[in-house]
Structures are given as structure tokens and as C-alpha cells.
């Protein structure tokens, strides 16, 4: 794989300065700040529905970033899957669990200090690691790497096995979700009554 690395030329001495960004970089950075800001608001806001909407912004921004990185197909999938389905699901979930629409004072748990500590620690560690490793690496964005056609080719010439395993995964998730969200209707309906007379209930306590 070293040949591959050499071909990509990622570690050549820092020829490019961070002080004179290209146009792509500027857009990337602006969108990046937007994504990060939306993410932060999403995990801190007290309005639950707003959190979901800010998440839409963050994930949509990420799709733009994918596009900027020439991963076209991934970007479309991101839009389709996340914005099209996941967020809708999340909103459904919030609705079904009767989440308050307005500000809820207890949106955050008592675990916040620990969360802040772990989050900051992980940020510090990871940023240090990443900056240290990639400070002189350069991505050559010429040549489209992620068009639909290319994607189809690599998926089906190299990644057949995980792809097929994934179909089992999706089916299992589907069935699992259905069976879990089915109410205790049908044959399990009389359970409430049965429970009371069930002999296995400890009564002596």
C-alpha cells in the first residue's frame, strides 16, 4: 500500500500554505463552520423539535461537503437517506413520545459535566492526533472519484459480500422494528388479564 500512498503524494513537504486557501477550501470551511454550529445547537437546544431541525441543517451541510470532496453519489445518498427518511422518523418518534413542542427545562440530564469533560477530552485528543498526522497532506481533487457510475462499478466488483450481508441486516432491522412496534394486540391481547392471575408473580413480598 505504500505505493498507493506515494501515488497520492499526500506527504510531500508542505508546499501549500494554509494562508492562501483555494476557492474550494473557502467554501468547504464556510460550510464546515455552518455544520459544526448547527451540530452544537442541535445538541444543546432545549426545544426538542428544533434540535431535529438543526440536525437537518448539519446533515445537509455534510452532503455539501461530500459534493465538494467529489463524492457525488455519497452526497445524494446522504440527502435521500438522512433528510428524506431519518429525520422524518426522528420527528415521528418525538411526536409519538409526546415530546413538548416548546422549551423543555429538562432536556439535558444530570450527566452534563461528565459529558462536557469527555467531549472536550475527546476533541482535544482527536484534534491533536489528526492535526499532527495530516498537517502537510494535500488532497488532489482533480478527477471525479464518486460519480454514480464509478460507484456502481466499485461496489459490484469489490464489495459484493458486505453488500449482500447488508441486505440481511436491513431485512432484520425491518422485521425487528415491526415486531417491536406492533402493540400487544392479536394473540397477546389477553395478556393484561392473564398477568394478574399468573402464578409466577411473587406475591409474598
Amino acid at each position: 500500500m505504500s505505493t498507493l500512498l506515494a501515488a497520492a503524494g499526500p506527504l510531500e513537504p508542505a508546499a501549500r500554505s494554509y494562508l492562501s486557501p483555494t476557492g474550494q477550501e473557502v467554501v468547504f470551511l464556510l460550510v464546515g463552520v455552518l455544520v459544526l454550529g448547527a451540530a452544537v445547537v442541535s445538541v444543546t437546544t432545549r426545544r426538542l423539535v428544533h434540535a431535529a431541525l438543526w440536525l437537518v441543517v448539519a446533515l445537509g451541510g455534510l452532503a455539501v461537503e461530500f459534493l465538494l470532496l467529489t463524492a457525488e453519489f455519497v452526497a445524494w445518498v446522504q440527502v435521500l437517506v438522512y433528510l428524506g427518511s431519518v429525520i422524518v422518523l426522528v420527528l415521528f418518534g418525538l411526536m409519538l413520545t409526546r415530546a413538548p413542542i416548546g422549551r423543555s427545562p429538562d432536556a439535558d440530564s444530570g450527566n452534563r459535566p461528565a459529558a462536557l469533560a469527555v467531549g472536550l477530552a475527546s476533541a482535544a485528543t482527536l484534534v491533536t492526533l489528526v492535526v499532527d498526522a495530516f498537517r502537510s497532506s494535500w488532497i488532489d481533487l482533480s478527477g471525479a472519484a464518486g460519480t454514480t457510475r464509478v460507484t456502481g462499478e466499485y461496489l459490484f466488483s469489490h464489495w459484493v459480500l458486505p453488500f449482500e450481508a447488508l441486505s440481511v441486516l436491513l431485512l432484520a432491522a425491518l422485521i425487528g422494528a415491526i415486531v417491536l412496534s406492533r402493540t400487544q394486540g392479536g394473540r397477546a391481547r389477553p395478556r393484561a388479564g392473564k398477568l394478574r392471575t399468573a402464578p409466577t408473580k411473587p406475591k409474598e413480598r
Partner: protein
Amino acid sequence: MHLAYPAVLAVLLFSVGVYGVLARRNVILVLMSVELMLNAVNLNLVAFDVWLRDTLHAGQALTLFTITIAAAEIGLGLAIVLLVYRTRRTAAVDEVTALGDRHEADGQGADDQGADDHEAADAAKEQAAA
């Protein structure tokens, strides 16, 4: 483009997700934070894929797989959350603690009873609605 930009953005996003997972009370918000973490990983993978000019496109393939996994997980996860809500009348992660050892020690039987009562009441209500 400097590789550092997407990489740093990704790890910051990941850390924000970590904070959200640990700080949020509503399980659905926790799930959303997990999605943030997974998306950060996706950004990483795509950036590395392009940077490496990987002929196998392992990074992008893995990104697609991750998105699918995330979707499957959130589907199943929401079903579980709804189940919890149906049986325990709450979606707050720190209120679903009946199975912990502390509770086991001071009479989990009573707690269990309570949980099942919830369930029974729930079933009764459904019946009434129907």
C-alpha cells in the same frame, strides 16, 4: 484541499456527538447525537478515500455501508424507544433504571410490579380506545 480541514471538522463533529450522547436526556436526542458521530466518521472516510485515490474505493463503499447501518439502527432504535415509552411512560434515559444493581438490591420486585402495572394500564387503555 488540505486534508486537515475535513479531518478536523470530522473529529470536532464526532466530539459534539459524544457530548450530545452523554448530556441529552431524551433517548431520541441521544440517537440524534449518535447520528452525528456516525456522520463525522463518514466525512472522514470520504476525505481519506479521495486523498488516497483508493482504486477499490474502500472509503466510499464503507461510507455507504455506514449510512445504511445508521438508518437501520435508527429505525430499530426508534421502535425500541417507542416500546420503552409504551411500557414505562417515559423517554428519558435516566429514568429507565429499574434493572440496575442498586434497584435490584432494594427490592426490584416492587419496581418490576410497577413496570408491569404500567403495561397493564397501557393495554387497558388501548382496549378502551378500540
